[in-house]
């Protein structure tokens, strides 16, 4: 049997949409570079027994031997030491681990809730849709810090939720707190996707052969929305990491216990350190925060260009 294109003498190499997206992603230099940087960072953070030079609470030099507080960067402590002589470089590695966990976990919860709510709202419409849109509108009317602080208190005051979300300001508590704000962005994106696809021919075709709503959402709409969902995921990871730092800055950061720290807590200490002139306590945590958030943003940007070539003005 001869294929049609062979018959007319042209050979067309078929490239699957997934492969096309991959090829486009590879074109986005900042995104590829970010993937590399982030991979190195995640490896360094996971392999702390090898990469960290000191324990979380271990002083760089024994205080009995020499003064160890607020040492500027030097060979014993690459990024300097803090108020009780601990190595900032090692603490950053431990801290980033906790903050990445907070960011990823809350973003995943956000995506699960957001996809479910957004898909139902988009497909069913009606009252549920109205309520969802109004609820997100209300939250958007307030500055994010205000919503975070008020909801933090509300969640902390509801006693029956304590077994699920943990004590006020525990890491688990913050994950749920950020997820409350993360899902709304995802839900809006998914809802818009569902609305734009609802009347398309392939959905109609699927419906014509008897597909149920659940099948249509899972088999047709979600696979066609992977790009926007991934972008929304990257945005909510960044949002959660920055929120954690912002809360810490005002003293509402995670309560990670004595044996740990978080990037937010290290960033949160920077305001005081800046006034005292300890630049290394400011610059290094900020650099870590910016590198992480910029890398994730660039990857999200690359994913959008890769999955929605039209959105980037047709230049990709």
């Amino acid at each position, binding site marked *: 049997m001869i294929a049609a294109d062979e018959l007319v003498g042209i050979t067309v190499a078929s490239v699957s949409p997934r492969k096309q997206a991959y090829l486009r992603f590879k074109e986005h230099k900042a995104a590829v570079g970010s993937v590399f940087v982030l991979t190195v960072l995640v490896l360094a953070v996971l392999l702390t027994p090898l990469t960290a030079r000191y324990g979380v609470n271990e002083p760089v030099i024994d205080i009995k031997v020499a003064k160890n507080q607020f040492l500027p960067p030097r060979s014993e402590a690459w990024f300097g030491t803090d108020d009780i002589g601990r190595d900032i470089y090692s603490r950053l590695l431990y801290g980033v681990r906790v903050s990445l966990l907070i960011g990823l976990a809350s973003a995943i919860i956000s995506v699960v809730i957001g996809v479910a709510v957004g898909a139902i709202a988009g497909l069913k419409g009606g009252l549920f849709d109205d309520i969802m849109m109004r609820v997100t509108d209300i939250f958007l009317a307030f500055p994010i810090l205000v919503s975070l602080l008020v909801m933090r208190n509300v969640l902390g005051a509801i006693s029956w939720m304590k077994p699920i979300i943990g004590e006020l300001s525990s890491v688990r508590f913050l994950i749920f707190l950020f997820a409350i704000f993360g899902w709304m962005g995802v839900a809006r994106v998914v809802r818009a996707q569902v609305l734009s696809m609802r009347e398309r021919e392939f959905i109609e075709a699927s419906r014509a052969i008897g597909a149920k709503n659940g099948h249509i959402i899972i088999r047709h709409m979600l696979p066609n929305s992977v790009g926007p969902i991934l972008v929304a995921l990257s945005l909510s990871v960044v949002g959660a990491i920055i929120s954690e730092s912002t809360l810490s800055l005002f003293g509402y950061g995670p309560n990670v216990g004595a044996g740990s720290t978080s990037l937010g807590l290290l960033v949160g200490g920077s305001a005081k350190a*800046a006034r005292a002139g300890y630049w290394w306590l400011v610059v290094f945590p900020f650099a870590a925060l910016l590198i992480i958030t910029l890398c994730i943003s660039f990857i999200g940007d690359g994913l959008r260009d890769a999955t929605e070539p039209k959105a980037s003005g047709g230049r990709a």
Partner: protein
Amino acid sequence: MIRFVLRRLLWAIPTLLLVTFLVYCAIRIGTDPVQSYKRANSRLTAKKIAEFKEINGLYEGFGGYVRGYFQWLKGFLTGDWSKSIFRNGDVWPVLKNALANTLVLGITASTLGIIIGNALGVFAALRPGRLRDTAVNSAALVGLSIPPFVSAIILQLVFAIYWQRWFGGGSLFPTSGVYPPGHSGFDLFLRIKHMVLPVTVVAIQTIAVYSRYMRASLLDVMNSEYLRTARSKGVSERRVLVRHALRNALIPVTTLAFLEVGSIVGGLIITENLFEYPGMGRYFLNAYSSGDFPQLMPWMVIIVASVIVFNLLADIVYAFLDPRIRLD
């Protein structure tokens, strides 16, 4: 047009009521006013507490919350505001000062940011894809990605702390407050000196937003058919740009500016607190950390009302500027 405005105004009232009711519940659950009262005054008698509950309408249960809300609303509307729990004084004079300070900071920063941002956006859009376009666009992306607290603390570090060490003398710009401690009366020069750093922090964000927005908006117009028509009529390039392109490109930018003004009032919390600027943001965090219910509620109402009002204004201005928009 008038019908549209009236209808939107009528809708704004139930929205405002619903949102303030939700906020009322959230704040009462979150910062238990009775607990705050007990913390503020030791050795309270049960009678005193009951009296406090009665005055502030702190009834229990869902029905109690509804009743308490309406009691609060009546007091709020008639100007009979309950007193601050911790300072034991009137709320309005403090809130008024905070609002005025925030408006000064916000409007200065936004005006600067909008002018510079739009200029940069036009500058970039005139040569799309060239070096200046890439430079403006990337710089704006970086500006947007930097959280305000990072730029605030870095500016403090450089211009206040390290300036002294490098060049001797005092710091170039003060890092806190609106006047030096102990100063009284109005002094324009000192005031400006204190506002340079906070204004810069806020303006960085505004510039980044507007340069990208203006660029996109102008590029959109540049590709439109009516510009080609104008050019083919023989209109000079300068006139095409100023009369045809810029005027149309400014429509969405103006809408954005109105939305932004609405969010200024509560949107500078981080900057204000890092610079100890006595505005709405500092007011909020103080009231929040002490759990001062009578101080928090009016603040929330102002925030919500300004967002709703400026959203409405943005819609009206949009419809007014762009005759293609139909309001029904």
